[in-house]
């Protein structure tokens, strides 16, 4: 396939075009992803997550700088929220990263969530795969600004970096489940601000109380992303986690889990689409839903009936 060949040769335009087709749910995208799949699996995926305004974009920019110094090629997928009112979005993460826009070994793509919850866009996984197939050695995913429960990135990334800043709240905020449970590496950014040491200490205390971490003890690093301070140490920490995973063959395990999730999601979506399509054709679905709404039929029996009819 022409598009696939171009992407594997490193054609930026072709890769960017496929990413758009993936986001739009175009049927040609599926064919291209099929043939690219065998070329994925070698990129190292790093998730950067944290609350809005914690400095994720600036940190991503400086991490990229450091990774380029270490001669790694870099892909960046930066996710920003879609407006629930207009369906539009302002994707502004690039502002902090523009110095890399002329570097042929850095590919930056902004994505809108398009209503998907969880901190990523629905198509983020597939876009990461395109970057991987296009030969990017390290892929950084910057999530939308998250609160406490948007932890989908943990299913995509090999190493999750959770970014915090001083003054967000007392230690009770840190003990809450969710975002704090997914970090492999923790960052207190804007560490030149008052209270940074306290925030770092509180985070460390919470992490020490965590029950079983499978042998990896997440550490807390202080950075001042705007000045590039603490970035080299942070990259060292990320690579230390990578080494930890590789020594225990855990990266493969994570990869398998990611493949399983992607497979199940795809199966679910495809089955749903085909079932709905088949029932739309003979028109009985609408009628069935009406009977459910009128309480003539319960939804459980309705679904069983549908599946019986198509032999599932």
């Amino acid at each position, binding site marked *: 396939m022409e598009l696939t060949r171009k992407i594997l040769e490193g054609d930026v335009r072709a890769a960017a075009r496929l990413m758009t087709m993936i986001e739009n749910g175009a049927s040609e995208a599926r064919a291209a992803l099929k043939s690219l799949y065998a070329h994925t699996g070698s990129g190292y995926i790093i998730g950067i997550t944290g609350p809005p305004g914690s400095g994720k974009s600036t940190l991503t920019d400086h991490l990229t700088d450091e990774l380029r110094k270490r001669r790694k090629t870099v892909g960046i997928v930066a996710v920003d929220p879609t407006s629930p009112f207009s369906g539009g979005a302002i994707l502004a993460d690039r*502002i902090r990263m523009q110095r890399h826009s002329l570097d042929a070994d850095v590919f930056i793509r902004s994505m809108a969530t398009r209503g998907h919850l969880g901190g990523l866009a629905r198509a983020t996984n597939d876009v990461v795969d395109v970057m991987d197939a296009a030969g990017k050695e390290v892929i950084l995913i910057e999530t939308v600004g998250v609160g406490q429960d948007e932890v989908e990135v943990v299913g995509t990334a090999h190493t999750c970096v959770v970014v915090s800043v001083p003054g967000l709240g007392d230690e009770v905020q840190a003990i809450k489940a969710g975002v704090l449970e997914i970090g492999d590496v923790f960052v207190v950014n804007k560490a030149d601000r008052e209270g940074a040491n306290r925030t770092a200490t509180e985070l460390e205390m919470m992490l020490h109380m965590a029950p079983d971490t499978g042998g990896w003890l997440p550490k807390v690093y202080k950075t001042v992303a705007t000045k590039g301070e603490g970035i080299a140490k942070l990259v060292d920490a990320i690579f230390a986690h990578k080494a930890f995973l590789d020594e225990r063959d855990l990266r493969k395990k994570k990869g398998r889990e990611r493949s399983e999730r992607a497979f199940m999601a795809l199966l679910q979506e495809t089955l749903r689409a085909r079932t709905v399509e088949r029932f739309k054709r003979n028109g009985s679905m609408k009628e069935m839903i009406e009977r459910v709404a009128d309480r003539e039929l319960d939804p459980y029996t309705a679904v069983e009936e549908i599946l019986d009819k198509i032999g599932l």
Partner: protein
Amino acid sequence: MTTQVQQKIRVLIAKPGLDGHDRGAKVIARAFRDAGMEVIYTGLRQTPEMIASAAIQEDVDAIGLSCLSGAHMYLFPKVIELLRERGADDIVVFGGGTIPDEDIPKLKAAGIAQVFTPGATTGEAIEFVKSNIRSK
């Protein structure tokens, strides 16, 4: 992913050159968002090379250039030239800012599809983008 096809118009709003006035660019970015578009905003002091490269990576349908420094006669055509070099001249490029009337025909001859001068409404710009982008 075959379930729903949802095309979104993607537009890059960029400020080439050295002036630091990004109010107009921000107003247009916000208006485009409210019209349901995905707006990639790259901020101040962009070189034409940075703009062309970002537009290609982001696979945008259109680029809006805002310039208040008077350097539009160099900066705008340069963006067009770079897009052509990289085979991306199907991206519609329009401009806005303090641009003298006599420059507009020259910019259009250089490939700028439309020029919006002070007084133009955001609605006009939205309508222009919606009716002029390539169909993918």
